[in-house]
């Protein structure tokens, strides 16, 4: 693939000697929604977390190979991991608002990177809350604790928080699965809007959600890459028997 945003080369990940990802080679296209699917335990989340170096948070995780972001290996020792995480954001399954006000949550990323500018901050916070679809509901209570929001609102807040540092890539680890159907729909709609400006990589175990959202599909099984390609190709004309079986609901 030309001009892939992220390129994975010979990625192998093991947790305390148990292999989780075996020899992964793939490309993530720009400004599309890429969905990683597969049965539980196949390594979807491991692959996702290799993109923002979150695997390092797990004791005993061993990573070898390369993950290139715009051509630069993010695992290179000379690279500052906090910069990588600024460029590759993550929306987790369960929302965890930070113990501060709504305003401070959104501003958090910018502040910790040392970007001050008070005047712009108000505009920035408002902008990203609007993008996340939360502005109207919270504009009157920006300085109240974020923990008072509903779960769906908290997830949108986390979205705003993640976008505020202006990443290039947005990762989503089943970001709607902990939400009620209405909030889940909200999040899905936001993601569809965001793909114009961001490369989005999602993990989901709900095939229907994948079909709704995906432009590009990656199918994993037991730590290996089985098939990947544009969504309509993989969903309608899968090349591998395993993919066909999965899509048919065999496992």
């Amino acid at each position, binding site marked *: 693939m030309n001009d892939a945003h992220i390129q994975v080369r010979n990625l192998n990940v093991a947790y305390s000697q148990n292999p989780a990802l075996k020899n992964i080679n793939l490309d993530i296209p720009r400004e599309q929604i890429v969905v990683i699917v597969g049965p539980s335990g196949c390594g979807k989340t491991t692959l996702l977390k290799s993109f923002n170096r979150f695997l390092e948070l797990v004791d005993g995780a061993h990573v070898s190979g390369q993950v290139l972001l715009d051509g630069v290996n993010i695992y290179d020792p000379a690279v500052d991991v906090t*910069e990588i*995480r*600024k460029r590759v*954001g993550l929306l987790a399954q369960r929302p965890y608002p*930070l113990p501060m006000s709504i305003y401070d949550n959104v501003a*958090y*990323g910018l502040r*910790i990177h040392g970007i001050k500018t008070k005047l712009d901050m108000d505009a920035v916070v408002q902008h990203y809350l609007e993008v996340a679809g939360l502005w109207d509901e919270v504009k009157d209570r920006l300085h109240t604790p974020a923990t008072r929001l509903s779960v769906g609102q908290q997830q949108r807040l986390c979205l705003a928080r993640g976008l*505020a*540092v202006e990443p290039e890539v947005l990762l989503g680890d089943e970001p709607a699965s902990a939400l009620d159907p209405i909030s889940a729909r909200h999040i899905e709609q936001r993601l569809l809007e965001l793909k114009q400006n961001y490369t989005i990589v999602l993990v989901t175990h709900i095939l229907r959600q994948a079909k709704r959202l995906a432009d590009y599909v990656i199918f994993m099984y037991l730590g290996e890459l089985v098939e990947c390609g544009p969504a309509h190709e993989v969903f309608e004309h899968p090349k591998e028997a395993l993919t066909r079986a999965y899509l048919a609901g065999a496992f």
Partner: protein
Amino acid sequence: MESEKTTPTTWPTWFQIHLLRLSRQTKDRWAGKMFLGMTTLPLMLVIIMLVALLMRAWPILQAKPLWDLLTGQTWRPLRGEFGFYPFIMGTIWVTAVAMVLAVPPCLLSAIYLAEYARPLTRTIVKPLLDLLAGIPSVVYGVWGVVAIVPWVKDFLAPTFDKCLGFIPFFAVDNPTGFGILAGGIVLAVMVAPFIIAITYEVMRSVPDGLREASLAVGATRWQTIKYAVLPQTLPGIIAGVVLGSSRALGETMAVLMVVGNVSRVPSSIFDPAYPLTALIANNYGEMLSIPLYDSALLGAALMLLGMEVIFNGISTLILHRVTGREIA
């Protein structure tokens, strides 16, 4: 148990066995009742202790107004003068010095263990902390006398005298090395394992998802601790510090051996002092021979009990709320 199923022919044995079998449920019920009865023991003990000490201390509380007892500065039992103020101050000074010395390093160590250390480091350090916590008070006292008191006398006191001697708090009137600072240092090491353990537990109770939320936007580990983790843990840490101080103020033998045992209101950390615990321990032998002496000493014990009940009760309640479960 198999024999319960068969039916022997002799009447007494059949009866006994039938009884045994019937009473499986009864056994359970009786055991439950007995266990429940035993659970009243802790609460009863606390109440009985308070009452018993109060009763023994009553004579002196009757003889003098409480205010005079607490603020009186002279302690001459033979003359019937019982002013507790120097001893209360002694306890407060030693405990305060111990906490000031202990809290910053212990918090830092606990944060390191909870957030940065590799599992291997944790498995080594935690047993070591348990060991430190298990060392008896007298052994700490020995260490204090052998290692700390000379250090204070030969190094710390002269150094402070030279540099900061003009501040009354650091003035050195007492050349022996036995005093509040020595006591504070020994106590600080004694309470360290507790403070570290509690702080560690409180920090581990913060869900990892919160840390990941902060790291995901590119925060460093330290920023994550500072902004995402620590604010949640503050009440718990405070409770842990309060618990630690309650342990410190109740310590007897170690403090006794290094603090000088001079009943004077301290004005400098190098002064000797006479904490309440040392007062009781040193004088229990004579307490029955002088009128009101036993009441006075047991009144001191009552004071200690009261302080501890309040400190412990409050901090335990806070800790339960913070970590969502019983702790420490």
